[in-house]
């Protein structure tokens, strides 16, 4: 995972690198929700437990990101909220889709 550094003083946020970082983060999150959907579908999870898996895997992805950055969030993203928590709703529909598909493929059909 390539994450070039960003120096965060008022003038010195390097826009190109910040954009690259956020793109990588977006890709990571898509992978995360794909995996979460597959896990929830294959294991036959129902209802709220499935949603719980999505949140758990989202937090695991954020934790891995934190470890990779050596916990120095400011150098790579604008704020820790941005990097860890902000995008949880955007990939929710993707998770639902994958969950429905795999649940049907494995358990029912």
């Amino acid at each position, binding site marked *: 995972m390539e994450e070039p550094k960003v120096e965060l003083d008022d003038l010195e946020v390097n826009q190109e690198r910040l954009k690259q970082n956020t793109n990588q983060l977006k890709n990571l999150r898509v992978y995360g929700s794909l995996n979460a959907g597959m896990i929830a*579908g294959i294991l036959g999870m*129902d209802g709220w437990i*499935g949603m719980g898996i999505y949140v758990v895997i989202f937090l695991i992805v954020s934790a891995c990101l934190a470890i990779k950055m050596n916990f120095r969030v400011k150098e790579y993203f604008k704020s820790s909220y941005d990097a860890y928590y902000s995008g949880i709703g955007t990939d929710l*529909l993707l998770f639902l889709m994958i969950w*429905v*598909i795999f*649940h049907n493929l494995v358990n029912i059909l």
Partner: protein
Amino acid sequence: MSDILIDDRIRDWVFLPIIIVMFMIQMFRGLLTKYMDNKKTTQKVTSKAQVAEMIDKNITQQSQRLARLHGLLPDHSFKMKRAHLCDNKSGILTKASEKPAKDPMQSMSMMNPAAMADMLKQNLSGIVFMALQYQWVSYFFSGFVIGKVPFPLTQKFRSMLQRGVDVQNLDVRYISSISIYFVLLFGGLQKIQQLMFGDDTDEFVDDTQMQMQMQMMGMPTMPSFGQQNDPGKLFIAERTRLEGVKHTFELNKSQDKAIKSLKRFLNQ
């Protein structure tokens, strides 16, 4: 309600084909847009109104850049640039803010027709494919249950998820094929396509996804009209912003910053 056993053949001939076909149509749409983008030639600025619009846009860009990056300029240079823009009599912003407000109808017709045609084409390609897929799915695959959603739903969803299946007491969890179509549509096959095929399809995806969502909500799509109605107010706002900027030349702080980063480097 006991579990319904669904025939294997439904999975082979309905479920998987719908997914595969929708995914391929998605990719085809991506290629189509790329092709149309390549065919697009640059538009010539033809009317005087368009030139005036471009000038306005450039002025706003210039003032915004100055407000954002003022730390890179030494004092006298910044003052000169600010005076050039904001001076009481001869500044560009003051002159521009005295223009009369355009009324929206007139400004819309002044929008270059090429941009309108582009938007129409994008809209069309999105909507045509959506309608086509809907018709295809509902013609061939209607009238039977295709799967089950993993979460409990209320009775209100019955009409949406079980279109064509008229069994009254059937658990709302059992869905018909048209609902798989909806799930795939909203779920974002685009994101998966983006993952698999890199970032070339980036801008296309954002535009049509955004436009589709906006059309779903019934609002008209106006992606690039900006603040057409009152450019005067815009310029006045820019001017007050520039005049309120507290300017410091960043080079003056450079020694302190160097000390800070060296310390941080040595402490690692």
